[in-house]
């Protein structure tokens, strides 16, 4: 492989990490918050898809993509409240409800999204942070969407707030031990509903990124499972918001590998290159997780029990 080809690949992976990672960041952060409170919402794929549709539709009608982003967030809150409330009933399994909610959210998005497949809606402008670079590919790679930066800021704030604020303590307490939380006068049900709603909000914004920035279009095949994968990445990131960013960046970069290799003429076995994110994630998990990894999991999580 020539140095030029290697540069192309590396730049593509950098660009891919930035472009592709944002929806993963938002969904994973939303799920982290929800899981920290002791619930699993496996249905964030539904929030993502519904958010994508709502954002596109609102941006199309109002001409303001940022209004679309906000609306997407609230569509996520709606689904989150539904999930949170139903799972607050005794004996209802949150994982199963998540799967059912996924179907509901996707269904609503498809049903109301039909008229928006064809038209073009105003999209979120990216910030040209690569103006200094002489390499046009690098310039392009550094076209950064404001949502990417917002996502990183939210991750930092969430990481800090979980550890250092009273709200963070309440969420963690609820997630780690329901009896302990009750003893402190916390209403775990309320906390979990709110955490699921807030998580839903973030996942909805992740969807807005898909339809309004990258790839920047609405159709029924838009998500191809990113929401489901992002939920899984939370376990990979061990419920740490900062690690969610890392996981998402890594996943995005690995996802850019397949097309980038083909673009420099290395195209045999592209199915494996395209599966690189999954293979890489699995290897890292095997290498990095000792038998004590489950300790990072919130104690009330059904997946951790």
């Amino acid at each position, binding site marked *: 492989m020539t140095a030029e080809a290697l540069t*192309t690949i590396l*730049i*593509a992976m950098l*660009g*891919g990490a930035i*472009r*592709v990672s944002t929806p993963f960041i938002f969904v994973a952060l939303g799920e982290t918050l929800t899981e920290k409170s002791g619930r699993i919402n496996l249905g964030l*794929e539904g929030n993502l898809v519904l958010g994508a549709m709502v954002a596109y539709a609102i941006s199309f009608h109002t001409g303001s993509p940022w209004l679309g982003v906000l609306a997407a967030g609230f569509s996520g809150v709606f689904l989150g409240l539904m999930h949170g409330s139903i799972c607050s009933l005794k004996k209802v399994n949150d994982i199963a409800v998540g*799967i059912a909610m*996924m*179907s509901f959210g*996707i269904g609503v998005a*498809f049903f109301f999204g*039909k008229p928006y*497949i*064809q038209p*073009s809606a105003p999209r979120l402008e990216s910030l040209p942070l690569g103006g200094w670079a002489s390499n*046009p*590919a690098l310039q*392009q790679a550094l076209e950064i969407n404001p949502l990417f930066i917002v996502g990183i800021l939210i991750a930092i704030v969430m990481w800090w707030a979980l550890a250092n604020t009273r709200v963070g303590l309440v969420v963690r307490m609820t997630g780690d031990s329901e009896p302990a939380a009750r003893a402190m006068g916390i209403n775990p049900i309320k906390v979990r509903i709110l955490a699921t709603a807030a998580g839903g909000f973030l996942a909805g914004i992740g969807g807005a990124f*898909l339809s309004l920035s*990258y*790839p*920047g*279009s609405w*159709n*029924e*095949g*838009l*998500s*191809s*499972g*990113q*929401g*489901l*994968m992002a939920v899984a990445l939370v376990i990979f990131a061990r419920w740490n918001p900062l690690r969610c960013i890392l996981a998402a960046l890594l996943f995005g970069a690995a*996802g*850019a590998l*397949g*097309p*980038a290799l*083909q*673009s*420099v*003429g290395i*195209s*045999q*076995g*592209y*199915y494996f290159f*395209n*599966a690189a994110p*999954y293979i890489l994630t699995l290897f890292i998990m095997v290498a990095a997780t000792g038998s004590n990894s489950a300790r990072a999991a919130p104690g009330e999580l059904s997946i951790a029990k």
Partner: protein
Amino acid sequence: MATKQISRRSILKTGAAGIAAMALPMPFIKAASAADGVVLGAVYVGPRDDFGWNQAHAVAMEILKSTDNVTVIEEENVPETDSVSKSMESMINLDGANLILGTSFGYFEPFMIDLANKYPDVQFRHAAPLWSEDKHPANLGSYFCYLNQAHYVDGVAAGLSTTTNKIGFVAAKPIPTVLSNINSVLLGARSVNPNVEVQVIFTGDWSLPVREAEAANALVDAGCDVLTCHVDGPKVVIETAEGRGVKSCGHNASQAALAPKGFITGAEYKWETIYSMYADMLAKGETLPNVVVGGYHNDMVKNTAYGAGATPEAIAAADAAIAGLKEGKPIYVGPLKDNQGNLVLDKTFDNYDPVLDGMNYLLEGVIGSIT
């Protein structure tokens, strides 16, 4: 990665209310007897409004819906599993369908072949050039528009529009129909500009918008300044190209509006030609022919009206190419080698020669691999 199916199909294909109905069993009510005329069942692999392959069929199907004597029933999102057989059988048994149109490649074998044998009184037609008289039942048949002719015209226009001499092609899967479109773009471009190369990236599935955008970006980064594609919904590729400031050629339907600056032209099916012919024959009570295929010479494909990206000389050359195709001028002028150096076409082949339907190579000048 086919995640679309994984994450969705499972949950997609069911109609919830069935559960409810089990609680409220209704007495069996006799099926509405089939109308005297033709009951046509159309089966689509995706949603009817996907701005791509399925929509192209569904829009053209309207012609049949307005035909006297023909009742059209439709089913969308039917995967290429035994769901196809069962949906079609259900149309036959419960709706009295006597003509079935299957519009996805994978419906043909084994499903439509088996059904045609099982229901000899029902006519089946499938949208790909796969039927052959000596292998398949007589009540089955094929219809297809050779879109590669329109992609050849894309190539001609693109060949005169590129300054880097590199055209990028985002492709779903390495099957003959797709490969023929890629090769035709190359041959079209080389017919006017011998230095052109076509670089292809396979995404691995028909609808993966994020990877399609990644592929489009990677192609631009690799120096391509014209992009085209063969995926279910070309919207993402065309919009990404426009966003990167490069030119583009469309696929399936008109994407001109998506790229006001860089759109050159695009390849479009004209299923309506076939479906109106079917409609006329059905209205007269005639049996449909087993094979209806065509291209430019019989008005079954077209190119999108030229956009701002097309230079006057590109338009002139493309118009000339269209005129040539209408007269039957061959695209595959032999001898031709594949990009591994093997001689794959030893002579010139007619545009409808069945040899070309089995294409499993990328021609010399295409950068990419089919495995």
